[in-house]
């Protein structure tokens, strides 16, 4: 009987915690002014932080998976020049789709920023 009461209390507690912390947020509504700004992309300020977040776990000087090094401008430039950079992040062409795990694309805004930077000449700015 005691076991049963403790079970009921435990279940009620778990359910209350779960329900009280339920939110129905949508990014579009939570951040309505959050537009993707792709003007004047800078390698150091805009592109490098994105590459660090999405790519450098596997592609750095210390851990150059598939020989790709993305923590230097020269390394990034080489994959931009052979087109594998944009093909990988857009999941197009023959390049291996990236990020590989969990095999989902980076956010569209990050992809748009990289495309704009490449279109502007992929400068080291």
């Amino acid at each position, binding site marked *: 009987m005691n076991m049963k009461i403790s079970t009921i209390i435990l279940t009620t507690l778990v359910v209350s915690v779960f329900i009280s912390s*339920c*939110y129905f*947020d949508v990014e579009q509504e939570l951040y309505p002014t959050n537009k993707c700004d792709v003007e004047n992309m800078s390698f150091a300020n805009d592109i490098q932080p994105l590459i660090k977040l999405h790519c450098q776990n596997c592609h750095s000087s210390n851990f150059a998976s598939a020989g790709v090094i993305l923590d230097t401008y020269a390394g990034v430039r080489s994959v931009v020049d052979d087109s594998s950079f944009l093909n990988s992040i857009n999941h197009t062409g023959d390049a291996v789709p990236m990020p590989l795990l969990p095999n989902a694309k980076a956010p569209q805004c990050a992809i748009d920023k990289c495309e704009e930077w490449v279109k502007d000449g992929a400068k080291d700015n």
Partner: protein
Amino acid sequence: MLERISKLTLIILCLAFALSGFAQSEDVPKTVEQTFYTTRIINSHSTETIDKKTLDFRINHRFGALSGGAYEFFGIDRAMMRMGFDYAISDDITLGIGRSTFEKTFDAFAKYRFLRQYEDKDDKHPISMVWVSGVSLNSLRWADRDRENYFSSRLSYSHQLLIARKFNKKVSLQLMPTLVHRNLIDSTQFSNDIFAVGGALRYKIMPSLALNVEYFHVIPGQIGEQFTHPLSVGFDISTGWHTFQLHFTNATGTFEEGFIAQTSNRWDKGQIHFGFNISRQFHLGGY
């Protein structure tokens, strides 16, 4: 919507306790054991629970996609894993925690078996039923640190009713109506609540070898088009205290929100992952 979930949860809980009371009030023979070899079928929970005061150390490992070819050694060069500890506070209640490399996620769950299948002649207790609720916390760095980010946006929940029947020594089936709730989603096109129905089959080939198939059908229109239904096929190899599970799956998530709402790989494109689960149990409270 919140009210609807509360009502639904309440009704299911009432039903659960009513059914468990019913089961205990009857004078019935032996319970059916080993509907499945272990507490997980492949990705999902099974109706099996571990014994009271047992600690179960589990590693769920998923390699990269076979479609990576010889260069990626058919996926072996890549790996994702979940490491977790399950602990049984009673024979019917298990609590668990885990950490997955998938989106650097921490997760916790509570599992309660409230109805058991019995070996009675007139088949009055034909099924086992288990309730599993889980919470997962995505600990990735915020994509945009300049905006106001909320801790609640990191959380997702899952609630499952597992209904299983062992038909004979070889065949067991399990049905898994599931609700996954995500606190934050990208777009109003999608839904914070995701309803899915899962099904699983266990077919015992030899005394210590079984074939498992597990599939979740996500009701369409709730998640992005890039996501699909997780399908997994695998083998259980039981060696007493150890159970090895080897499988092929298109899911890389190793917790409910991950594999039900975020499976983007497809079997028809060869994006299949080889993986294994290893379980080691430790008795902490004597016999």
